[in-house]
């Protein structure tokens, strides 16, 4: 990757979840790793996230989930498919194993569980964007 290029990541909290701290901290880590983070904040519908991701031409989408609203993430995956827009989607948060499995089946590329290290998140993004 040349000097002029930066990995661009969209970070958002989805649906009616109000917990922004996790998303903000991850955004900060990604910035410290030299990435550009388009941060959307809370109360974002899947429709709003897809539209922003397209306009911003991001390389990766990161969704923070602390409210068990996996239905919203499923809808996000369906919308992306419908719009023929494919960038990796990763999710982080307190997501039980069976729900994590279901999300992976829906096309989510990676789930980061609570207490994932910042390094593991950064390394993962670098590895998928380089592919």
């Amino acid at each position, binding site marked *: 990757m040349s000097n*002029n290029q930066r990995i661009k990541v969209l970070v958002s909290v989805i649906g009616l979840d109000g917990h922004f701290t996790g998303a903000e901290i991850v*955004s900060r880590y990604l910035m410290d790793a030299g990435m550009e983070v388009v941060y959307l904040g809370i109360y*974002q519908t899947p429709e709003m996230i897809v539209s*922003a991701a397209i306009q911003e031409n991001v390389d990766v989408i990161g969704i923070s989930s602390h409210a068990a609203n996996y239905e919203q993430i499923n809808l996000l995956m369906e919308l992306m498919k419908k719009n023929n827009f494919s960038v990796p989607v990763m999710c982080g948060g307190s997501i039980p194993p069976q729900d994590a499995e279901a999300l992976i089946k829906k096309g989510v590329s990676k789930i980061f569980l609570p207490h994932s290290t910042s390094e593991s998140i950064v390394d993962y993004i670098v590895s998928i964007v380089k592919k």
Partner: protein
Amino acid sequence: MVDSIVEKIVNGDVRTAAKLIGDIDNRVPGTREILKALYKHTGNAYIIGITGAPGAGKSTLVDEMVRDLRLQGKTVGVLAVDPTSPLSGGAILGDRVRMQRHSLDEGVFIRSLATRGQFGGLTQSTRSVIDVFDAMGKDYIIVETVGVGQDEIDIAKSAHTTVIVVVPGMGDHIQAIKAGIFEVGDIFVINKSDRSDANKTLHDFKAMIDITRKRSTNGGWEPPILMAEAVNNKGIVELLIEIEKHRKTRKALSPESIIHNKKAIAQLELIDMMKIRLVEEVLNHITNSLEFKECLDCIVDGTKDPYSACDELLSAKLPDGLQQS
């Protein structure tokens, strides 16, 4: 290839435009050719610059402006610029948070940009992105920047109307904005004017503008100072009215002044463009050379000092006549 991209953009295709903006930002080779072809489709949009210190509520103001412009049936492109971290080179682009309610509106295109800050490339990318929005047929293009650096002032200069936003009670706040910004401001907004010290700020401000503004080449335009509470949608209508008035004043200038202004802007833009290319190309040329790498090794192992290395590289790599400055 170039033609089909241009055609798509002129037809307002969001995907193609978004991708092109990404390429502009990443300086992808070949982008220049598309911009050249796109240029003839530009010149129709009205460009508004919004500048002010962090925390002045610029994004909320922009969000409300977009709302009102949409109610008037106008299409809008928003370019929100945030600073790059000098330490990591990364950035958090958070302006969109305040504008996300427009994300499903097809008449609005919001794009975030980091300053990146290499060789003053910001002004270059910003102008190119404005061209893309313009070619897409947006009626208004709003460019939001933090008014602290020379780059931001230069961007402000190329807007048709430049709005400076401040908040009361922060003397340092005004200080933080580069003094030069007062010269380019066409409209001043005191946001969060519900604060108790708003009137004091108004007075300080008037004095400040009087001192900084020496001349009036703007057809007698006296920059108004407006009070606003963007979060409560107060003062937005007034701001848009002032922008419209300013637009009309600009139009009514004498033909000589118009040409004079256009020339000044063209000169600024052209010099910028050349500056970036020159620095970038010359530096690339030097840093990719074998001599450069040898010099680095010598500095590291202590056999050469950086001052001599610099002299040697420049005298070896620059054409004669450019070596002495």
